[in-house]
């Protein structure tokens, strides 16, 4: 805000005359880029948009169809693979060639809670891609031959990639142990998963019918004006049904935390995930976010381990990757400390992790470190929401789950209230409760939870 004295008299006069109503001239921006999403409801379909006035746009359909909601394992993966395949109106090849000609990028991905079908393109091409996404959602054919010729063909490679990612496997196992069903479902088909038994084009098609209905999806755009977007969404998303044609609904049970330990032998690397019940996306436990940043593991500044306890404790250990974070979901969360690297280093880091938690529980943390962690957690939260891909995923997921885009400013504010005392009691209750420990790799070297001093 400009101070009054900085304005000339004429401007002051104009400002007084216009009162609270802001008028804009031709040169002024349409609206100040606020960085938050505007939401709208277009005949039952939730739409969110953010206009940063940039030259490119990302448009996404976010569906409540993550692995958590799949009735059979692998269906979310199957549905993701069917994105941008042959529709009633044009072939998969034509879709890709056309978007290539327009310089667009088409991607589909999924998380534990959401399935994201996304297109990034030049700003002027919004109508084309809005139509395309509507077509993908409502008119995909789910043909048998594409399942056999394209989806099954890449499956072994996908499985191999999943199998080779030791840290990812450990995190997946940690979710399975912590939540059992629902959020515990594997994110991607693992090497031993019997895909053909559970997934075929008919199952995928009926899952799509349940999932792609208006109350279950949200359209999110970054880089498009709200009015422009509403116009095209209104026109093209008419064909999306208001409810599943088969009359079925998604099953979802409230998440419950169990905890426990799982150890898997793996030749390709070593990873340990130590997890505790965390904070959900609504920010039910802000102290968990701060605790995750305080444990940290990765420095945010150069040439020094930084303030975080794990980074300091493991500064001398080489070939080790440490990261603590809160995995937030709509009704639960998981505070995870992910360690991967050489077996001996991982073992040492796991011991250091428990030591650090015990130090926090004993109150041996300086006020300054807590202040740094709060500031860093705030930055992390807001920065994540501001980046394009993550921001769209965040906004879309909260839209389909709660019907509104989450107020991150309020969430960031709630972190301010976290004190060292609160962290102390939280850490204590985490250590007293059941932990989740997932170990993948050289089991001869990697420790049991019992050895680390955790209760499972």
């Amino acid at each position, binding site marked *: 805000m400009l101070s009054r004295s900085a304005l000339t008299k004429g401007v002051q006069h104009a400002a007084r005359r216009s009162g609270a109503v802001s008028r804009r001239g031709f040169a002024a921006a349409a609206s100040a880029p606020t960085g938050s999403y505007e939401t709208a409801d277009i005949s039952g379909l939730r739409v969110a948009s953010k206009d940063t006035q940039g030259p490119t746009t990302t448009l996404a359909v976010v569906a409540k169809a993550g692995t958590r909601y799949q009735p059979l394992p692998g269906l979310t993966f199957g549905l993701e693979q069917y994105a941008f395949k042959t529709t009633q109106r044009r072939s998969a*090849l034509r879709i890709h060639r056309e978007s290539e000609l327009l310089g667009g990028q088409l991607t589909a991905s999924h998380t534990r809670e959401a399935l994201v079908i996304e297109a990034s393109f030049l700003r002027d091409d919004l109508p084309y891609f809005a139509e395309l996404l509507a077509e993908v959602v409502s008119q995909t054919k789910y043909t*048998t031959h594409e399942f*056999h010729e394209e989806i099954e063909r890449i499956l072994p490679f996908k499985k191999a990639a999943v199998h080779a990612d030791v840290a990812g496997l450990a995190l997946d196992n940690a979710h399975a142990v912590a939540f059992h069903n629902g959020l515990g479902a594997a994110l991607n088909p693992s090497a031993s998963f019997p895909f053909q038994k559970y997934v075929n084009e008919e199952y995928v098609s009926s899952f799509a019918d349940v999932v792609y209905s208006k109350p279950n999806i949200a359209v999110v755009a970054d880089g498009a004006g709200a009015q422009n977007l509403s116009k095209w969404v209104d026109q093209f998303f008419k064909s999306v049904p208001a409810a599943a044609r088969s009359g079925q609904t998604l099953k979802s049970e409230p998440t419950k935390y169990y905890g426990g330990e799982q150890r898997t032998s793996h030749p390709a690397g070593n990873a340990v995930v130590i997890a505790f019940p965390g904070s959900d996306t609504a920010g039910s436990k802000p102290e968990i976010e701060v605790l995750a940043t305080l444990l940290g593991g990765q420095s945010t500044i150069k040439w020094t381990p930084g303030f975080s306890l794990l980074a300091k404790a493991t500064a001398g250990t080489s070939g080790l990757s440490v990261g603590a974070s809160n995995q937030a979901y709509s009704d639960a969360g998981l505070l995870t400390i992910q360690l991967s690297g050489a077996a001996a280093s991982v073992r040492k880091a796991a011991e250091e992790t428990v030591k650090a938690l015990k130090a926090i529980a004993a109150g041996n943390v300086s006020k300054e470190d807590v202040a740094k962690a709060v500031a860093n957690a705030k930055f992390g939260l807001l920065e994540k929401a501001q980046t394009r891909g993550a921001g769209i995923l965040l906004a879309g997921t909260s839209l389909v789950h709660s019907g509104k885009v989450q107020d991150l400013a309020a969430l960031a504010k709630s972190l301010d209230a976290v004190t060292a005392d609160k962290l102390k009691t939280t850490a204590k209750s985490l250590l007293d409760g059941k932990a989740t420990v997932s170990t993948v790799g050289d089991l001869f070297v990697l420790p049991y939870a019992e050895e680390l001093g955790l209760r499972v």
Partner: protein
Amino acid sequence: MVSLAPFVLKRPWLTKMLTPAANWYANAAGYRQLGLRYDDLLEEENEAVQIALQRLSPKEAYERVYRIRRSVQCSTIHKLLPKDQWTKPEEDVPYLRTILQQVEAELAEKDALDSMTVIKKH
């Protein structure tokens, strides 16, 4: 290949007139007496048919191979099948032609897209 079929099929009276002749011809062609369907006679040695054959369901593919082997056997021993095993006219349905048309359309589209010229509007 030029075909008169679309021209005939568009005119109901002509279709009606020629149907008995067509039925006579199909029976006289002799493949039904060997237990084959018309689609079993399509030339296999080209890319489109190979792709189309891949897309048959396992049951259809099995039955196709069974019919062809049975007819080869019949041909070897210079005999026709017993009359109750002849292909009935209502069984002689296109099961491969429909898929083949799709595949050909796909290949034609691919060719067209591979050799397209882009005309910029601006």
